[in-house]
């Protein structure tokens, strides 16, 4: 496979995954805040700031009054904001276009429909009444794409590279969402006499990554900070957990690098090393210094991505 096209496939996977998480974050935060148990979590400003925090543009100044329509437009449909859903979908399709001869007609057709759905979505509808419709459609269409990727591509290098992109991005987005919600939980602390460990924000967090139901089934208790972190980071059976994504990355890199003992400078070696570290982590350890943990793992993920680019996508 061409190195350039491999790069396109990798980023196609990443952009699809990113679009999904951003869209769901908008949806879940907006709608669960409406009947949140405390005033701050219900506040529009609080929710809008959380959204901006997630997309990497935190608003530090509390005196700025954010306009709901502007924020929703910027994150959803503003073609000039690199973090917007519309831009992620555009980039996903552009990357798919360059690799069009390698992906199935079915997958391409789904990406194409997805693209046309997003670029033709009326801005007025979206900011006034379409938030739910738009975000649900985006997340459902990405689910279709995952199905097409799994079901209409040969499980060879092409598939492995797309899955590497998807899983690295998923791990990254889950961490970023944890970071954003942790930040919200810190802010909301004490506003209704509760501890951060039992914040309402943990439920929102789980819903943002579609893991609330799984979590309830597994722990049969209201989520706490420890159980949520444990579930979303360390539970290998949770399909959205960081460790699950890293395990997937570990599995798929072996398709590209089949050597039994990977060279110590290779991507495969680095992935194994990172995986080894998280295999033996426990939640309390993470909670002790959650900021430090988040920075470290994001850095690990960036290093893996950079190494992949150098080893496989250099053209």
């Amino acid at each position, binding site marked *: *496979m*061409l190195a*350039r*096209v491999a790069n396109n496939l990798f980023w196609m996977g990443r952009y699809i995954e990113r679009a999904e998480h951003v869209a769901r974050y908008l949806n879940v935060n907006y709608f669960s805040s409406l009947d949140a148990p405390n005033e701050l979590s219900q506040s529009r400003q609080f929710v809008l700031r959380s959204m901006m925090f997630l997309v990497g543009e935190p608003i530090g100044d509390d005196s700025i009054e954010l306009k709901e329509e502007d924020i929703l437009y910027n994150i959803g449909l503003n073609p000039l904001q690199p973090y917007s859903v519309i831009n992620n979908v555009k980039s996903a399709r552009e990357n798919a*276009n360059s690799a069009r*001869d390698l992906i199935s007609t079915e997958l391409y057709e789904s990406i*194409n429909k997805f693209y*046309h759905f997003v670029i033709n979505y009326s801005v007025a509808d979206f900011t006034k009444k379409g938030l739910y419709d738009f975000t649900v459609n985006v997340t459902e269409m990405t689910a279709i794409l995952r199905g097409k990727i799994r079901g209409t591509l040969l499980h060879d290098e092409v598939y492995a590279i797309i899955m590497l992109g998807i899983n690295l991005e998923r791990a990254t987005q889950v961490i970023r969402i944890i970071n954003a919600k942790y930040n919200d939980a810190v802010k909301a602390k004490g506003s209704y006499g509760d501890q951060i460990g039992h914040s309402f924000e943990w439920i929102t967090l789980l819903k943002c990554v579609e893991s609330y139901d799984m979590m309830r089934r597994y722990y049969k208790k209201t989520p706490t900070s420890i159980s949520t972190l444990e579930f979303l980071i360390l539970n290998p059976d949770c399909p959205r957990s960081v460790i699950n994504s890293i395990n997937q990355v570990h599995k798929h890199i072996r398709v590209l690098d089949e050597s039994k003992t990977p060279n110590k400078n290779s991507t495969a070696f680095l992935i194994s090393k990172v995986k080894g570290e998280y295999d033996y982590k426990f939640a309390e350890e993470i909670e002790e210094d959650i900021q430090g943990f988040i920075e470290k793992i994001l850095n690990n993920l960036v290093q893996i991505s950079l190494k992949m680019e150098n080893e496989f996508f*250099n053209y």
Partner: protein
Amino acid sequence: MNSDANKTIFSSYNKNVQLFDEVFDSNGVAKNVYQKLLELYGNHSIQDYVQLNNKAKASFFNQGITFQVYDNKMTQEKIFPFDLFPRIIDEGEWEIIEKGAIQRSKALNLFLWDIYHDKKIIKDGIVPLDLISSSANYLHQMIGVDPPGGIYNHISGTDIIKHSDGNYYVLEDNIRCPSGVSYVICNRTALKRALFGVFNHYKTHSVTNYAENLLEILESVKPKGVDIPNCVVLTPGMHNSAFYEHSYLAKAMGVELVEGRDLFVENDFVYMKTIRGPIKVDVIYRRVDDLFIDPLEFKPESALGVPGLFAAYRKGNICLANAPGTGVADDKAIYTYMPQIIKYYLDETPILNNVHTYHCSRPDELNYVLEHIHELVIKPVDEAGGYGISIGNRLTKNEIKVVQQEIKQNPRKYIAQPIMSLSVHPTYIDDSESFEQRHIDLRTFTLLGNEKEFVLKGGLSRVALKRGNLIVNSSQGGGSKDTWVLKK
């Protein structure tokens, strides 16, 4: 819907008897091969048809079989307009077209070999030296170069029309980078999906075997010493208007679709950059124009090419299809010598007719052209895609004067032909929600390899969608029809 809804789809078809209708004879009776088709289409109401038509369009759109139009600084994606009423060519007529297309391809190949080697046809006074020495597409770098397998025009697209006399005429031979073959296949797929019940009443040749034949042709011209050649398709990139076709062909052949930046040359061999390091490339089906293939040899500003590619080609380490320099033979002035070229190299009479052509470079013919512009089509010899064409009977007096001036300034640049009356075919028109007569032509696709030849049994019947318009190119608002070639 109004009361029209129950009318059958041909009830308001207006037949202009001045035009040659491919479906109905001069008495308005459907020709044999179309009778069954009309009966089957007759079962549909206009409403049904509108629905089918919209579905087919949506299918093209969703599959991304589109081209981009730049309008008001906005890029719009459009589908290539497609008509659901197919054109049928019976086996007898097809045999003539197929033989004629191969004859032309072979003659052109021999002609190209000759003008890049001994130039006998010029020395013998058959073709004037000036046609070559003044052609921008004659590449001196190709003189004395032997392309692998001796093939220059691996892929030819021949544009054929049916005139009001019922005979086929060739309008032009495209042997640079003829495009459109992917639409032939898409049209067939769309028609089969929409009207499968119609399809099984006819024994029609398949068109999906094009890619496998193309791959065989490419493999047949592998460089010396190569066992199993690695073939690739070279595209200018996803912003090129024919990118869908490039990706379709790569995918259907199962080969890599590369851009210039994916390739590099080392020691006069060509390699592509893969995730597992460099892999040697042996045959390139390139959809990049001659002057852009190698910035070190041709246009230095080209970012589409590969530095050193031409040196590798001269060494015989890579095959390019089509060969560089073929453009000289699809010059429209060369076209006019086709009957002589066929006679000279093959000692045969042309199977397909040429349209009579006046050369503005010849003083007596120039005078005739200047005086008869109103009844001629004036074409620049070196433009493709229907650009720069003037149709005499559509011009105002002032416009004729402008054309006369242009011709006088550069007579070598123009040829003129009688205005041919292209045949018409019933075509569904969105605006009037009915079938109307529209002019059509036919682009055929001929492949030439080392001891192998192939003509796609089918082709792109292009439709001029504007009423009365004679220019069918997609860049000029043309559409297309599926074309059925019947089996014996």
